[in-house]
């Protein structure tokens, strides 16, 4: 009786996750689009798209010469995906790490500097 129950459980393929022990294997089973990340500087001087479409003002765009410094606060991002979809330069993409948590809030802020040499 018990063996039958066990076998049927195994056959259905249902398992308990091994996270955090086999973290990378667990996370690579599936992809979630839950956190955006910055890939590089923005060199489009006319565009204001990302800072305008972000519903929670998680993106700040600071004008510099030629291009713009960007500041992304993941701690304020609701993962709506607008920045990833709308940026014509592909500056934003979905991060691989979906299990982010920090002991300090400042660590959620990432920045890229403007400047043509970057």
């Amino acid at each position, binding site marked *: 009786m018990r063996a039958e129950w066990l076998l049927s459980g195994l056959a259905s393929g249902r398992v308990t996750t091994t996270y955090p022990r086999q973290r990378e294997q667990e996370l690579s089973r599936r992809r*979630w689009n839950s956190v955006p990340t910055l890939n590089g500087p923005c060199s489009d001087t006319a565009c204001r798209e990302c800072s305008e479409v972000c519903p929670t003002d998680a993106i700040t765009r600071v004008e510099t010469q030629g291009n713009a410094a960007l500041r992304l606060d993941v701690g304020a991002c*609701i993962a709506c995906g607008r920045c990833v979809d709308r940026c014509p330069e592909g500056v934003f993409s979905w991060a691989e790490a979906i299990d982010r948590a920090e002991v300090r809030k400042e660590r959620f802020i990432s920045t890229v500097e403007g400047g043509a040499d970057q």
Partner: protein
Amino acid sequence: MTADHGIHADWDELEEQGMSARLARYFGHSLHIRHIDVGSCNACESEVLALSNPYYNFHRLGLFFTHSPRHADVLLVTGALTRAMAPVLRETYDAMPRPRLVVATGVCALHGGVFANSSRFVGPVDSVLPVDAYIPGCPPNPYALLQGLLKAIQSREEAKSS
């Protein structure tokens, strides 16, 4: 230039360093979590509840939910703190025995998220309570919740040793 989100942070190593031993040492392999909703949209709740289902099964790590703050080691706060819930959150925190940890869960608790401009919104959770770990996401997935809970235990230990 691109922010490193720690995808290569080695949890195997952490296991070898004895995360389960730490849990045993400080909390006797039974860390009890009191979850409080201070103005959430309920999506965070559905993720929090998933922690105790057979798939995520956080009991295997020695983590459990409790209904009373008097039995709790961790206060897991979800939602945008509303004026009505601010005194309740404070009371819940005051009722907890020491050592106590606070984990802010979801963008609402960290920042306010889509409710940040509401007149009923008091502020992020860390404006009223000391927070030991922050979990972003709207809602954060259960892996992030587990990561946050483990980080909170670690952060307390680091603070103790320094």
